[in-house]
């Protein structure tokens, strides 16, 4: 005989009663037996039986709906009354839950906007980027291979070359502006499912026939700069020396705030990939066929590129955009969830305390005929109402919170992907409501169960009910769990704060005090020597050095830069410590070291007019050690690939963390920058005797006539560069500290509330103890010991969990490990201090209990 599926039987029981449900299932089985005897046995008896039960459930539901609505109304009325009867308690629960939910909502709104939301194009999960260079920047996909992929890569539907050129000066229909230009092959429009608002797009046919002096305009640019004028078709677009004709405008669907730079560039021009061998730089995007994985595409690309030693990192487009922040954003979401959990545990504890005070009331209701289920439902409804109230409050706070978060993210992390789309939208509201239901159930489940299981007979007696022990045990469990969760939060935030301190304290190699850089992205409008003279004429400037090839250290990473490298070898032919060393290639004037504050560990700089003999080179200590080991490198000869030649080592300087403390930096080699009066491009390092905030306007003003024709700034302070480089880390540490702090405050409130309720419920017992001779100090000590036991239990539980979780954060930490004992000691000390302080007030109240008053109660 088939057995009904357990959840169905359970649901049927919920709709009627256990006996009635059993009888109804019996009817189904009897019916089935009868069919068997009559030769009408269903093909799938188990399915038939379960369908019959589903039908019964449906009919029972329809029949019971009015009754259920009436009961729900009554339950809600009782819950409302219970809340009104204890306004202070209810407010406390609401405040604690609201703090947790508000923090969770704001965090979710940020993480959702930046990381979770899909790109607003059709099937964004199938869009991938295919790298064309390997990790060493060696080109693996040449134009020739591109066309091979275009024709034979079966795992993708469409494949297109696409590149964005930011900050390009362009003139459209007489209007000149600095804009982003997308260069792409014709397939891009079909791949991104774009359509023209007016005109047309260029086609592969146009590209084949060389009909490529055409341009398509972005929707927003067309509306805002050209007033949506349809006569723009046929007008000229000038980018540099090239002039194209506008043939179309993208439709409004391309201008979505969440699409980043994928489809909202103001100007689109063809990118023709040559079919003949060439060194053209490429960037490739593709749309995978349904059901294909990135690994499959990578495998196919590797095969077609005939590069068995290269594993191309094919990545989804969204992953590419959010990669730098994905991990820590998800971590922040996890931390926010922990704060919500702490709030839930705390609210559950408060509700348990309240249910203890309502024992008599519940007993009377039970004796008047309320079933256990009704009593439990009343407590559950109370929890849900409270969490609903908390969510309403939290959402009101979140309106301001989300705005604040948006401002914080956009100012602290300039250029953050989709930061402008952070808002309190439908998804966030849905998440907040789900959070309300989950927290409501979580915080009232145990109180509901505990309240409903008390037998009426013992409840009505004047003695302590046996459930009081269970309730107390649950309260201890909740408090311990709460403290353990706070430990986890504090350890994680502490690790981030320690990482930040270590990042900011590390010696980056150069002296950043009053150091500035003049670093345009394009050439000056005057020779560099004139620029230099202009800078030197500014009062307060004590030195100016020139640098080319690799961008200026720190500034290059923080603003815009390129990392030119060279390969070094010992010229004497012996293999030495390392056969060859890849190093950053700086070409600098001899005073560069003095201006940068680089003190020579050996030797010194070359003479300005060094002539005769092999040219000079200065290496950093890393490069020197790798080439020459412990030998004295001074005067030795080094062969370099770029600039090609043999150089004599004249000095060594300390290593400079050119890309900031957190990135692996190759060693550096400094070559002589030959004087050239016609030079119009170089980076200039400026040492001043006055603070950068005074120097910046002076330098900007004096360079105004010779600066490149771009709107963007090109004079920067070293401190600002470091601030930019550490922005994400500072934001992380700040965010984690907020989570840790809020979690700790809620935890402290939990300790306080539990101790207060304990004192309130044990007043009589304490009175007896005082009457029997216990001193106030002893009572206070006993109370503090109780709090201490909970703190210790929470630490014992939380520390291993925190250690286990923090091991996964190694990639996000800096010079601190998950096993750093000082972090755990600090957290333990902080938490014990705060916890004991929270317990001290109720303990003092206990110590002051008057035995006469308490015994009279």
């Amino acid at each position, binding site marked *: *005989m088939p*057995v009904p599926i357990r959840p169905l039987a359970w649901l049927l029981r919920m709709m*009627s009663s256990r*006996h*009635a449900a*059993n*009888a*109804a*299932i*019996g*009817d*189904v*089985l*009897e*019916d089935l*037996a*009868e069919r068997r005897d009559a030769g009408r046995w269903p093909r799938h008896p188990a399915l038939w039986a379960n369908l*019959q039960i589903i*039908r*019964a459930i449906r*009919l*029972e539901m329809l*029949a019971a709906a009015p009754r259920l609505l009436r009961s729900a109304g009554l339950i809600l009325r009782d819950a409302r009354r219970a809340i009104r009867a204890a306004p202070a308690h209810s407010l406390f629960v609401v405040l604690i839950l609201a703090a947790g939910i508000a923090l969770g909502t704001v965090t979710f709104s940020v993480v959702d906007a930046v990381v979770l939301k899909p790109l607003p194009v059709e099937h964004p999960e199938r869009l991938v980027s295919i790298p064309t260079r390997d990790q060493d920047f060696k080109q693996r996909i040449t134009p020739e291979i591109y066309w091979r992929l275009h024709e034979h890569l079966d795992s993708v539907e469409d494949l297109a070359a696409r590149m964005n050129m930011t900050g390009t000066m362009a003139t459209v229909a007489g209007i000149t502006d600095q804009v982003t230009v997308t260069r792409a092959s014709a397939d891009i429009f079909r791949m991104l499912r774009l359509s023209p608002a007016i005109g047309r797009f260029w086609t592969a046919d146009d590209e084949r026939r060389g009909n490529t002096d055409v341009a398509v305009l972005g929707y927003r640019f067309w509306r805002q700069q050209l007033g949506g004028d349809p006569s723009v078709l046929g007008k000229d677009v000038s980018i540099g020396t090239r002039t194209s004709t506008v043939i179309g405008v993208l439709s409004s669907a391309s201008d979505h705030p969440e699409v980043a730079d994928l489809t909202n560039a103001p100007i689109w021009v063809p990118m023709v990939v040559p079919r003949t061998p060439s060194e053209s730089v490429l960037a490739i995007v593709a749309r995978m066929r349904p059901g294909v994985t990135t690994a499959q595409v990578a495998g196919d690309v590797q095969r077609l590129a005939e590069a068995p030693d290269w594993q191309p990192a094919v990545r989804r487009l969204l992953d590419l955009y959010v990669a730098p922040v994905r991990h820590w954003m998800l971590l922040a979401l996890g931390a926010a969830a922990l704060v919500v959990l702490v709030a839930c545990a705390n609210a559950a504890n408060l509700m348990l305390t309240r249910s203890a005070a309502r024992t008599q009331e519940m007993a009377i209701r039970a004796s008047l005929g309320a079933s256990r289920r009704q009593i439990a439902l009343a407590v559950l409804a109370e929890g849900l109402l409270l969490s609903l109230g908390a969510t309403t409050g939290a959402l009101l706070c979140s309106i301001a919170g989300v705005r604040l978060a948006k401002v914080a993210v956009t100012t602290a992390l300039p250029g953050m992907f989709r930061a402008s789309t952070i808002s309190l939208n439908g998804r966030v509201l849905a998440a907040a409501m789900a959070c309300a239901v989950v927290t409501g159930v979580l915080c009232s489940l145990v109180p509901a169960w505990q309240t409903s299981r008390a037998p009426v007979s013992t409840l009505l007696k004047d003695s302590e009910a046996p459930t009081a022990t269970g309730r107390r045990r649950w309260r201890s469990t909740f408090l311990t769990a709460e403290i353990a969760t706070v430990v986890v939060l504090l350890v994680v935030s502490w690790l981030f704060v320690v990482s930040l301190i270590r990042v900011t304290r590390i010696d980056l190699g150069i002296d950043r005090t009053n150091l500035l850089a003049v670093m345009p992205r394009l050439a000056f409008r005057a020779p560099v020597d004139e620029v230099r003279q202009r800078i030197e004429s500014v009062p307060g400037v004590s030195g100016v050095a020139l640098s080319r090839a690799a961008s200026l250290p720190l500034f290059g990473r923080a603003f815009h830069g390129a990392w030119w490298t060279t390969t070094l070898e010992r010229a004497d032919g012996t293999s030495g410590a390392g056969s060859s060393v890849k190093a950053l290639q700086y070409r600098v004037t001899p005073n560069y070291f003095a201006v940068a504050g680089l003190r020579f560990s050996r030797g010194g700089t070359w003479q300005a007019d060094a002539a005769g003999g092999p040219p000079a080179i200065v290496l950093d200590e890393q490069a020197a050690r790798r080439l020459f080991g412990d030998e004295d490198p001074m005067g030795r000869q080094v062969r370099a690939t770029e600039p090609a030649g043999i150089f004599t080592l004249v000095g060594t300087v300390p290593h400079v963390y050119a890309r900031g403390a957190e990135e692996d930096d190759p060693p550096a080699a400094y070559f002589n920058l030959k004087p050239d009066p016609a030079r119009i491009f170089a980076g200039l390092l400026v040492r001043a005797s006055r603070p950068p905030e005074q120097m910046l306007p002076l330098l900007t003003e004096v360079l105004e006539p010779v600066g490149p024709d771009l709107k963007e700034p090109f004079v920067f302070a070293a401190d600002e560069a470091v601030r930019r480089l550490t922005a994400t880390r500072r934001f992380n540490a700040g965010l984690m500290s907020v989570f840790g702090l809020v979690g700790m405050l809620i935890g402290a409130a939990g300790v306080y509330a539990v101790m207060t309720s304990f004192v309130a419920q044990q007043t009589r017992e304490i009175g007896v103890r005082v009457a029997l001779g216990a001193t106030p100090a002893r009572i206070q000590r006993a109370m503090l010991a109780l709090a201490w036991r909970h703190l210790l239990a929470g630490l014992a539980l939380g520390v291993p969990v925190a250690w286990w979780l923090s091991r996964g954060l190694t990639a996000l930490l800096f010079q601190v490990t998950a096993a750093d004992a000082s972090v755990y000691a600090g957290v333990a000390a902080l938490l014990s201090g705060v916890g004991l302080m929270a317990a001290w007030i109720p303990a003092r109240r206990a110590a002051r209990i008057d035995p006469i008053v308490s015994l009279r109660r």
Partner: protein
Amino acid sequence: MRPRHRPAPLGEFELLVLLATLSLGDQAYPVSVAREIEARTGRKASRTTVLITLERMEDKDLVSSRYGEPTPERGGRPKRFFRVKPRGVQATRDSLERIETLTSGLEFVLKSR
């Protein structure tokens, strides 16, 4: 004591279920009632609909139910037997009287068809 209201008029299916339950006496449970209706009237009656109808009439105080002993052919589950209460008998009588009142004078028409 406040006099009790007369039971509300029955629906057609309710009347059928009540009549079948009355005729089955102590052996009326959803499966047997459904079977009885089908055998005597030829009208298909689903067991679940019969059960829901009986439960609704139990809420109206027209029938009462009790549980029997578990039986092996029902997977060890008991039967839920229903009995018509005096109010249920009264409701049945009222309904039949109404039908009778309406059909009087129509014998010629009804018999000839």
